[in-house]
């Protein structure tokens, strides 16, 4: 028991959290301040959880997969705490937990499912050993921050080695699925993957640069949880049986995220996993914040799609219909987006061949130049997101609208849309 030792720090953090909420919007500041007064509070709080900590990391899909996993576990009667997207550093996690802990640092929960940034996961696992880790994929992302994909792989390897009970890992990813990656893992390894039939739908990053060059082959044993079919009703197999499920999120990649969450849920619950009960939770899942969510503004349906890197951009474009849809793209180069916008040259924009209505963001002009070189028409260039949105909403009334945005651009666009929104759907 923690007793009252941490009460002052918790009180300060809770007060700050309430104050900042009243001002509008969340912040990592309460966590930062609390951490300053009580540096080991996070590990103490999380250490009490009877079913421990489940860590979700990888380049793409963390937020959506975490959300699905929380639903699967909740369907089994567990009280689950999680961190909202974007707050995946320790101070952000602590900020989120401050809402749920009492003054003695007690948490009324069975288990924590935390999405953690790849680079930060390495220092996180030094303090808190995850019972189960779920490793999604390694793609090129913000190279100015991490340097290289090989480095990201090394970071995830440290997470794999630090995991206590079960390592749930994507065997369809050429880096994570290799025998070399799994070499000194002491936890039990449970793979998830996709059937050979669906393999052509799964984009690995190595194929981005060249059609000739083959990705390193995944050498690991066959995965225990496999996506067999995709559609309105998809099929997953495990334990020698197939199970149908409905996960109403656009895109093949989200069906893979669903199967990753099922694999992690099985790892956590073992024999007490009930397929019917778990999979019944999937049809009511709605897109996570900015990850394909739809807002209604002035009667216009606007879908927000977060794009962080070339691989992610490519898979979301492949997942969507593009005819009769108006398109806007918002590209920022702030720290959280990655300062280097070179990556847009690794995206093949030809799926948007009919044209892009508006480009915006700090690097709107780079986008326009990029589209020029793919010979894709672009109607409006407006770096200011508020003015760009006004133009975009006024064009093609009644037509579905989709906005691809980098992280900070998504936050800005969403804030403006929510101010103007009559209500939200989905």
């Amino acid at each position, binding site marked *: 028991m923690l007793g009252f030792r941490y009460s002052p720090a918790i009180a300060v953090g809770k007060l700050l959290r309430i104050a900042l909420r009243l001002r509008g919007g969340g912040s990592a500041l309460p966590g930062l301040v609390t951490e300053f007064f009580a540096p080991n509070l996070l590990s103490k709080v999380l250490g009490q959880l009877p079913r421990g900590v489940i860590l979700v990391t990888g380049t793409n899909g963390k937020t959506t997969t975490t959300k699905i996993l929380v639903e699967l576990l909740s369907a089994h009667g567990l009280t689950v705490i999680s961190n909202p997207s974007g707050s995946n550093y320790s101070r952000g996690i602590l900020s989120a937990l401050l809402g749920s802990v009492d003054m003695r640092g007690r948490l009324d929960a069975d288990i924590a499912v935390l999405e953690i940034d790849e680079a930060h996961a390495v220092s996180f696992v030094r303090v808190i050993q995850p019972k189960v880790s779920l490793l999604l994929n390694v793609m*090129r992302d913000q*190279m*100015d921050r991490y*340097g*290289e*994909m*090989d480095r990201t792989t090394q970071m995830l390897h440290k997470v794999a080695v630090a995991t206590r009970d079960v390592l749930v890992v994507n065997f369809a990813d050429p880096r994570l699925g290799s025998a070399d990656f799994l070499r000194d893992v002491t936890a039990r390894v449970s793979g998830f993957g996709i059937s050979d039939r669906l393999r052509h739908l799964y984009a690995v990053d*190595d194929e981005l*640069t*060249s059609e*000739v*060059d083959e990705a390193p082959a995944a050498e690991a044993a066959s995965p225990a949880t496999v996506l067999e079919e995709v559609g309105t009703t998809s099929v997953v197999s495990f334990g020698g049986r197939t199970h149908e499920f409905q996960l109403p999120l656009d895109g093949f990649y989200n069906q893979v995220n669903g199967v990753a969450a099922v694999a992690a849920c099985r790892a956590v619950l073992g024999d007490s996993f009930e397929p019917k009960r778990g999979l019944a939770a999937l049809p009511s899942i709605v897109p996570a914040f900015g990850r394909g969510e739809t807002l209604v503004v002035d009667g216009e349906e606007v879908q927000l799609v977060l794009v962080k890197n070339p691989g992610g951009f490519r898979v979301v474009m492949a997942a969507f219909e593009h005819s009769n849809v108006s398109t806007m793209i918002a590209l920022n*180069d702030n720290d959280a987006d990655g*300062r*280097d*916008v*070179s*990556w*847009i*040259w*690794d995206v093949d924009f030809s799926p948007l061949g009919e044209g892009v209505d508006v480009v915006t963001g*700090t*690097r*709107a*002009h*780079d986008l*326009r*130049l*990029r589209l*020029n*070189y*793919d*010979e894709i028409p672009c109607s409006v*260039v407006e*770096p200011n997101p508020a003015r760009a949105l006004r133009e975009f909403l006024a064009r093609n009334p009644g037509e579905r609208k989709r906005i691809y945005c980098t992280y900070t651009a998504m936050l800005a666009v969403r804030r403006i849309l929510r101010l103007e929104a009559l209500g939200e759907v989905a």
Partner: protein
Amino acid sequence: MTAERVTVLNLYPGHMNVYGDRGNMLTLRRRLEWRGYEVDAVDHHPGDVLPDSPDIVVGGGGQDAAQALVQPDLLEHGARLREWAESGTPMLMVCGLFQLFGHHTYTVAGSALPGLGILDVTTDAGGGRLVGNTVTVSEEFGPLIGFENHAGRTRLGPGVNPLGKVPRGQGNNGTDGLEGAHYKNVIGTYLHGPVLPKNPRLADHLIQVAVDRRFGPTELAPLDDSAVDDARASALARRR
């Protein structure tokens, strides 16, 4: 009349392209096509045979491990590449291949990795990556706008000129204020962005040299670069 054909050789696009350098190839292709040329883009992967006499050669940056992986193949073709460079073939080598066009660079383990020595430069490991928006001022091409991101520290020997000076950014090594290298028509640089889309003067220089060599003195038709000017201005306005 059939269109005149220009061959552009792309070195190791599978291994040496982590920072959007694919855009350099695309820029050359479009700027040639928009002027009525037909483009033969030849990708060279380890183990492939080199084409006979390419008009332009480009190469990009890769991860450290990839650099070591392509190096044996590069050295195997060293004699031909040197012959092309000496005879004036225009070449653009960015980041990793810029290093490998020098005398040596280094491996992940820290040992020296021999290069072609076409450019009189050497690269050694340095502490910390040099990262950020950058401007290189070249006498020949004006201000070149890009983004740098490299750990290697490159120094020029007497047999090579710098591409330019760096009023903003770290350049080859963060100390001497120089960026890139220029020898005959071979240009080495750390500029990503990628470099050619936002610096069409440099792109057109490579094209001009290539078509003059292939077809005799040629006047290149001007292109509408208004999108370029806006992109350059907005990149310049961003903090480093």
